């Protein structure tokens, strides 16, 4: 390797400290060097697999350490339909809706596969446990494990169960740099078809160690939930007053 190339390698190595962008990749003619082409394909494969890996409710239930759970499906019967029909992913399968336990719940946690079941398998149970541990005397509904689900499915669930608030933990749309990112959406007294995304508060990029930690996410969520109860609402009127910015996941 020539001296110039070594120096250039050092320059790009130092620049890459400042961005995850795929810069300074070099060239094979006009195209990418083989190594970088394969690295891109590997990242794309991880993202694709995250989208299409089946949801395993049992994995999440096992991680919940004895908390009661209920399994439901959305009205989207399979992945292909789910990806093309977001409207079906927002509605419960009618049979499953009838099986949901009704009660005076303060909150129901919904663990939804979304666009990355991998994110849910890896991160959802610890977030539920850590958050529940901070809620003291709150009356918690059984955790609902929802398949082929969009965020707004939580509205249908909370409404059917009589819960005052819903927290949906959902696999975010996978990027090539992050295929396992979990989002959390908090909604107070949702009404299916009436509640909009502007009525929710969102934490995104829960993905330790690169993203938000379980403790960090649980702390923020529990704080937001407490204030939502005082305020009687969520959404634009409820701001995260902790030190980190939240930023709704505009891409889900």
């Amino acid at each position, binding site marked *: 390797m020539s001296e110039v190339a070594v120096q250039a390698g050092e320059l790009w190595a130092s620049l890459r400290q400042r*961005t995850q*962008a795929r810069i300074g990749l070099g060239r094979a003619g*006009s*195209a990418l060097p083989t190594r970088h082409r394969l690295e891109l394909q590997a990242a794309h494969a991880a993202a694709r697999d995250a989208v299409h890996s089946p949801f395993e409710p049992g994995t999440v239930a096992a991680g919940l350490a004895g908390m009661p759970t209920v399994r439901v499906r959305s009205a989207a019967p399979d992945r292909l339909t789910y990806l*093309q*029909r*977001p409207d079906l992913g927002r509605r419960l399968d009618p049979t499953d809706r009838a099986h949901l336990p009704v009660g005076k719940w303060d909150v129901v946690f919904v663990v939804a596969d979304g666009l990355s079941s991998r994110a849910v398998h890896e991160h959802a149970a610890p977030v539920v446990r850590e958050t529940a541990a901070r809620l003291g005397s709150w009356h918690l509904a059984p955790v609902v494990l929802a398949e082929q689900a969009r965020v707004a499915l939580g509205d249908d669930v909370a409404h059917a169960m009589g819960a005052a608030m819903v927290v949906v933990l959902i696999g975010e749309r996978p*990027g090539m740099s992050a295929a396992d990112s979990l989002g959390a959406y908090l909604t107070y007294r949702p009404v299916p078809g009436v509640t909009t995304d502007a009525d929710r508060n969102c934490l995104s990029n829960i993905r330790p160690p690169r993203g938000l930690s379980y403790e960090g996410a649980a702390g923020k969520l529990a704080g937001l939930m407490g204030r939502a109860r005082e305020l009687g609402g969520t959404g634009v009127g409820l701001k995260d007053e902790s030190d980190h910015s939240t930023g709704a996941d505009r*891409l889900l």
Partner: protein
Amino acid sequence: MSYESVLGGHRYRFDTLARLLAAASPERSGDRLAGITADSEQERVAARWALAEVPLADFLTEPVIPYESDDVTRLILDTHDAAAFAPVASMTVGGFREWLLSERADAVALAALAPGVTPEMAAAVSKLMGNADLVAVARKVRVVTAFRSTIGLPGRLATRLQPNHPTDDPAGVAAALLDGLLLGSGDAVIGINPATDSPRAVRDLLELLDGVIQRYAIPTQSCVLCHVTTSVDLMARGAPVDLVFQSIAGTQAANASFGVTLGLLDEAYEAALALRRGTVGQNVMYFETGQGSALSAGAHHGVDQQTVEARAYAVARRYDPLLVNTVVGFIGPEYLYDGRQILRAALEDHFCGKLLGLPMGLDICYTNHADADDDDIATMLTMLGVAGASFVICTPGGDDIMLNYQSASYHDALYLREVLGLRPAPEFEAWLASIGLLDERGGIREVSGEGHPLTAIGKELAA
């Protein structure tokens, strides 16, 4: 007015022009989601038979969205140029297809026709065209615009350099900017999608880009893609705004969901023109569009997503933009399911935009939950290069770390220029030569050493 045709012994009836256009559309997930697609493949073809017989003049008397309730419809009909329309005024949609493909429709005739074509006419005729037809006609259309570089000349392909960063970190942006410039990119615009729309963050990025452009005397323009009201505010405060950006859509209600009105765009356009920051031209607007945005906003009025998209181009052409691009596969598979649907939409959008007289470029892209990959990018790039796209958007390695989607890469643009013999915008090409980035064949020289003067951009900011 209703439309009918007979196919396979069955009579098909379509109650309105909007219904007919929707049924004639190729299968796509967004129209299925909206519940307006043909019920069968036979019905789809029957709709095309009926559509082929519709006189073009009917589109002037039967708007797909009522004149009274939608300002985009009013814009389309109120600005229609009857004299420009005259050469095709007596044609049906089917006849129009054949005329467009014929030698009579050369670059001069198509340029003269543009103000006489409505979006619905363009969308209608595209539904009777195959992918190759869409390439063949779009290739003949030339739309030339200019600011500090000239976009759309024959034999040229410009690129948008997109150095996004998830936290707008200046050093991270500068590193990606350096990477793109060294790969010969950025003659259409150096354009950043900021992580926030805060005026302060936008201004910081504008000043960073303006500083680099001035220091190296780069014949290009910058754009930080914020809401039009943010740009208006920043221009009033003296920020270095080259191009005013806005996402637009094809109905008044969809534009309202973006927080824009025609009046607001008028105001921004006047303000940007008054700055006189262009050197070789004064096209000051940059618009992005994309199929599915009206449906996503619940504002599509039962009109198919391609026709609504074409109506967005009527909004764009009111402002003589420097650049318009469809962000074709960005929203996701609920609108365009796979590589096949994204390719078709890209060719339709490019064709319709060009026919209406716009400097059309593309963000050839997909999300990771769509059924597409980098081979689809290569296919789309090649076809759109042949079709004469004005510019394409390029990201480092084709992976945008801010918006989490996949687009073309700087390498892809090098490929396209090489295989089709396309060159950068002339002013930018001269600049590339002046800083030693053009090789003896006119391609981009492979430069990686610290010796190149541009590397100072990265070194200083990374220090």
